[in-house]
């Protein structure tokens, strides 16, 4: 039976990947956060491989990484909502998102998921979502974009 009232949470971490689904999850989170005036934290993680030190000057200089969070801030501003944005460099995307949610004592983690298929046609869920579903201490929502929106 569907719930009459939206679920209540205090603080949600929204993991942004820079994909088309980012806007959807930010809007959704803002709408869901409104009734309880919950805090929203948008996190974008830039993955670094082992050839670079973890504190290398990569994300700060990356316009693309900054733009992902700026776009989310823009949506929040347009919807008259408050959104904290955090840019993180890490070796592993899933671990960094879960760690950030845990460190911020979030009670909800929202992830977007693009509809992609592997060679052969099987659905590709990637590594971050299963990691979050398995390890996040809080509730996890995964929002998958519609099938038709798969980038060509």
């Amino acid at each position: 039976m569907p719930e009459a009232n939206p679920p209540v949470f205090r603080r949600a971490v929204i993991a942004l990947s820079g994909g088309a689904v980012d806007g959807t999850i930010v809007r959704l989170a803002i709408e869901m956060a409104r009734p309880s005036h919950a805090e929203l934290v948008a996190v974008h993680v830039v993955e670094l491989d082992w050839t670079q030190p973890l504190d290398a000057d990569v994300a700060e200089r990356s316009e693309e990484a900054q733009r992902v969070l700026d776009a989310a801030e823009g949506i929040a501003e347009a919807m008259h909502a408050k959104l904290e944005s955090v840019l993180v460099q890490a070796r592993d995307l899933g671990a960094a998102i879960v760690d950030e949610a845990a460190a911020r004592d979030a009670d909800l983690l929202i992830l977007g998921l693009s509809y992609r298929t592997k060679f052969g046609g099987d659905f590709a869920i990637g590594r971050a979502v299963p990691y979050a579903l398995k390890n996040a201490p809080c509730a996890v929502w995964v929002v998958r974009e519609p099938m038709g929106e798969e980038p060509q």
Partner: protein
Amino acid sequence: MTAPRPPLKGRKLGDRRVVVERPHSDFFRYAGPGTMVAKAAASAPRTSIGRRVARVRSFFFGKPLANEQEIGERLSKKLALPIFSSDAISSSAYATDEILKVLILVGTSALFFSIWVAAAIALMLTIVAFSYRQVCRAYPSGGGAYVVARENLGARIGLIAAAALMVDYVMTVAVSSASALANLATAFPAIEPYKVALGALVIVLVTAANLRGIRESGNIFAFPTYLFVFMALLAIVVGLVNVATGSAHTLPPPDHVIHDEGQLLTIFLLLKAFAGGSVALTGVEAIANGVPSFKPPESKNAANTLITMALLLGAIFIGLTFVGMHYGVMATDDKGATVLGQVGAAVFGGGALGTALFLTLQISAAMILFLACNTSFNAFPRLSAILAQDGYMPRQFAFRGDRLAFSWGIIVLAAVAIGMLALFKADTHALIPLYSVGVFICFTLSQTGMVVHWRKERSSGWAWRSVVNGFGAILTGVVFLVVATEKFTDGAWMVLLFIPLLIGMMLFVSHQYVSSARALEMRAGAAVPQPHRHNRVIIPTPGVNRAVIQALNVARSITTDIRAVYISDDPEGTEVIRERWAQAVPDVPLVVVESPYRALIAPLVAYLDVLDRSWTDDKEAPITFVVIPEYVARSWWERMLYNQAAKQLRATLVGRPHTVVITVPYRRDEARAQAEVTGIKPAGTIVAEENVRP
């Protein structure tokens, strides 16, 4: 660059992450590759005085609006109608009077013709409204008659339309405020000596309301317009019922009635009455000027609003004339009751309700007459913005202020209207002849332009449309000739003088912009020349101190050809300076210029002249960088104590050929703090006053 924070440990062994600073995010937002959008914080004042001023501005004019909020400032049809129509609709309150004032010269029997004259004016209104409706659809960027004339009759003819409209908008503001004050002065004679000051105050208040933005000013001014429309229509409906039931009795002649002069009823007199009543059409063009102010679909909404306005104006004008004719209302002089007043008193009758309705009608008429100027405050700035975009007005007129209003246009309109009010001592009789002359020029040009438009476009129905517009052009052209002839000696000559003057001014501005653009133009694909001229640096030196050394370090980054110049009025102290300089910076020559007349700036400029003259003619003149060390004052009183000579020098040198002035500020607090922490002198910040590169 900001240093990343130390790595944070994750929940699992080996998981590490670094939170990266986002220093731009308080002030900017990346909108695309290489594109940043400034947030409100980036435009906020940094100083305490600036913040205070911003608070005061925000209190009076509202918080600044961002460009993307412009769509929210757009007008619905309900709000646009009072904003753009108050001028046109208000003229229905006195247009019938203008007809009767002419016809009464023949005698009361001629008053019968008033309805036919009004019908002819209504026909002209229909044609003009029809034409402007097409203008709204054909030219959605606004601009009305100016754009139509520019596109179809040429730029010069377009300027005639623009200048005529601008003069008329100024006059609308001056006349409406003067007439509102004249009405007030009838009730309160004590204000008579203060009419100019009160008129100026009124204009300032309307200006302030308009600077708050178009939507907010619409909210302020909508109620009086709708109240007047409602009360006038109510009076007409009651009057028509009385006429139909036979209870409309001829009124006794009012006080201050204009007596007939036994003139013959000629075509010219009828034309004069027609021209007098045509004042009802003033303001009809305002909607076509402001199409972009409407909510989407802009053209359709503007066209529909224009038709609503024309219907209301026509209904009130014809209705008042018709009911007035049946009640036998007469034209009075300025001290007598208006046609609207006579009709209102007759149809509402006595009694408490009748008196209340009559008073409401009169008060709403006074309010709408006063607010007629608001139409100009919306149309004039938009027209001047379009002219500025076309390069005929200074570019500032195209800039939107904090509230997305064209602030320059609003302020200039207010200033000129106040000037006119003061010049004519707020005398309505002196101002009215200047009014409604320009608008018929622009009606004629706009209709003629539309004829050309239809003939060029050849869309469906082009033939009959061009016939209608052609007829309208002839009609409005005739009205212009009659109005201009009738009012010429009373002051219309001034308008006919202002218009060419304004055109001359606009052409001058355009010429300036075109010639400067030509001078600055870069040929597409042309190779950008590399720097090839010799650079040299002159450092005006007040002595040997940290600020001078910092300036010297900046100079070293420009060239090796550096010399310091010390202007001395104390030969004894000069040797000490020279010794200290030689010790501190032995590789940079110090030129001492003794100044027995104690001048500081002039000898330095003369020294620069000498350097220029000593340069051989076969080589291109070098670029001289004058690097001025400047101590940064920490408070307003310190600013009075320091840098006075530097300011004078900068002012003198800005604009000097082949010279770049650079100010190197030296901040005592920062320098001390940094020296304490690092032991390294802080780098100077360069403020280039002029950036000339070879």
